[in-house]
């Protein structure tokens, strides 16, 4: 088969990276950064999710359509959040 087989070493590296990032998330949460806590926590979560998507789910080596599907689902999530919040955020403006 011409398919690309990810070496086991890559899987292990990603696994350790995810573990370390989990520890970092917990550690950062213990420090009070105010509103930044959420930003950092979500940033790390998005980074972790990207690692899983790109390597465990092989999207890095996948066809363009797969990548588009991933991006599209994230984009639609943003539409849902964004337009819903457009209501809640602007209610107080009046």
């Amino acid at each position: 088969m011409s398919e690309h087989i990810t070496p086991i070493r890559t899987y292990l590296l990603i696994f350790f990276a995810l573990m370390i990032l989990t520890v970092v998330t917990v550690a950062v949460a213990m420090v009070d950064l105010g509103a930044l806590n959420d930003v950092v926590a979500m940033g790390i979560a998005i980074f972790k999710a990207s690692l899983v998507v790109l390597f465990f789910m092989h999207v890095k080596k996948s066809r363009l359509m797969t990548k588009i599907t991933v991006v599209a689902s994230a984009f639609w999530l943003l539409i849902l959040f964004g337009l819903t919040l457009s209501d809640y955020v602007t209610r107080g403006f009046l």
Partner: protein
Amino acid sequence: MAEIHAPGLAHHFDSYQQQKEAAFFGMWVFLATEVLFFGGLFCAYLVYRSANPEAFAAGSRELDIVLGAINTAVLIGSSLTMALAVHAAQVGKRKMIAAWMGATILLGGTFLGIKVVEYSHKIHEGHFPGPNFVWHGPEVNVEMFFNVYFLMTGLHALHMIIGIGIMLVLIPLAWKGRFTPESHNYVEGFGLYWHFVDIVWIFLFPLLYLLDVG
């Protein structure tokens, strides 16, 4: 006329390659629906947390960070074993597919076990939403946090239970050599599902357990 088909290749496909691409693409499209499915809950979380920041912080403090962190590690571990099962399928080691999937079930089961412990604590403390919900603190509307908590983690756990069920079907098939390096779409497709479930938890953990603990 086309009865000369290869084993594991459905009649309406021309090649393994086409069948494989169709299967994976189908799985990805399905996962897009899953993203939006959990998205509805995340949207509710967003709206209610911004309306009740203190209540969400207070509710979050009730959760056990240690158990949550352990569960995160367990689930990431199960993603690794799942990835290794897929790797075994790609190189054609049928017993290793079954073994790594077995390990995945074990880790998934551990996760669910810890979840049961957490749930029973919360129920015991009267934090299960409903008419019997108890909250002694000054914060109002903490019940909403627990509504969201139980819905999100409950649906996540349901996805894991379904996943374990599917693996219980796949393991005997793998053992019997049903999956070859050419044709193992079920293993690889299922792998995508399992990793997706992992990703959901990667977001749930900080959003539910790590609010205002600093």
